[in-house]
């Protein structure tokens, strides 16, 4: 298993194409956290994010024979995940759906981070409480962004993709991507002014 650690993504994909399931497992291990995080920030629903992250890898596996090593592997993977997320967001908009987990969490004042709160019997230090609270508020502000700005800023400032990669993932001109990210940042800066002071 650990023999795959030094393989490049392209080499792993070539092995997957040949039917090497160990190589596929290595790709999943490398990208499971970024994909789940990316989809979670877009959808604000942990269960759906997990489901779509798995679906992203399933599609990668099923279409391994079509993969060409012309582009960055992560760009290819983010493109699949983005398409799934956008379809899900449109489906929700059409049916006016919302997450029951988020709904009840919000009613309880827990925010949308609740699925990640592990029970801790020890009282939290004040600094940690503040840190968690701030994190929750920032996540909520990101979730409140319009879809096109949210996708762009999550890819750039949370996932750390380059502008060119984002342009490729979204199929947009570079200038449009930069403009959207700028607008998203300004929106968040205004909204979070009181929380970014320290």
């Amino acid at each position, binding site marked *: 298993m650990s023999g795959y650690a030094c393989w490049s993504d392209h080499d792993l994909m070539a092995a997957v194409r040949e039917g090497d*399931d160990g190589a*596929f*497992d290595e790709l*999943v*291990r490398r990208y*499971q*956290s*970024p994909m*789940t*995080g990316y989809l*979670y*920030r877009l959808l604000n629903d*942990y269960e759906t*994010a*997990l489901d779509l*992250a*798995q*679906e992203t*890898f*399933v599609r990668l*596996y*099923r279409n391994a024979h079509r993969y060409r090593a012309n582009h960055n592997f992560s760009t290819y993977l983010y493109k699949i995940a983005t398409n799934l997320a956008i379809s899900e967001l449109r489906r929700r908009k059409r049916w006016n759906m919302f997450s029951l987990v988020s709904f009840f969490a919000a009613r309880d004042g827990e925010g949308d981070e609740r699925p*990640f709160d592990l029970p801790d019997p020890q009282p939290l230090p004040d600094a940690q409480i503040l840190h968690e609270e*701030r*994190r929750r508020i*920032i*996540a909520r502000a*990101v979730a409140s962004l319009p879809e096109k700005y949210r996708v762009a*800023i999550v890819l750039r*400032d*949370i*996932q*750390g993709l380059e502008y060119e990669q984002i342009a490729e993932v979204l199929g947009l001109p570079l200038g449009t991507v930069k403009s959207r990210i*700028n607008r998203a*940042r300004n929106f*968040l*800066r205004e909204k*979070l*002014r009181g*929380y*970014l002071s*320290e």
Partner: protein
Amino acid sequence: MTCGRLRREWEPDGPIPSWARAHVAECTACRAHVEELSRLRRALAALAEVPVPEDFTHRVRARALVARPPALWPRALAVAALGAIAVALLFTLERERSSPPEGPRAFVASPSSAEIAPREMAPHATSREAPETAALGKRPRVAPPARSKGDQISRMTTPASVGPNRTSARDYEAVLSEAFVSREADPSDAPLSHDGVILLLRNEETQEESILAIPPVVFGSRLLPLRPASPTPGERRRIL
């Protein structure tokens, strides 16, 4: 303008360009802008960590293995379904073509032996009259024949002409001839001329008779080829 250029070109995670350093040191607004965006960037980067279940890889593997065969299944199913439809269609057409043309079947009963005696599988033209003639115990109003085919048709039907209230042969003629006339008028109407049933209804107390024409609206009724305008003697016997 340095403020505008800085806001356009500076990336929050990158260093301040050399041309802007002196300006940022002097300009309070630009300094606040740089500090806020840097903090925002750090705060957003902290959101990247999201826990993933330990069995994530196994779940993906399980889904991927299950998902692989369906890539072929839909096509195979579609081909099989199309094949089945084509075979069924050919079989039906072949059967229709090979089956000999049949005349309308007749259900004949003696007028005196039953209260409700099915008389004839008649063509459709009487269907419009069904509501008018359906009432029991009321003498039906029947349209007069449009053409003089009465001689032929009266021989095909059983007259019930005993008594003043009995349905006369002319009544049958009227109903049936209209149907036959409409067939003869336009042979291309074949799809419209369906089977139907004409019933002779007799009230035992009042001895009044009615003709009930049931249009061929029953689900599953079958289209039959047109009967020749002049039935053969053998056919007449069969009908009677």
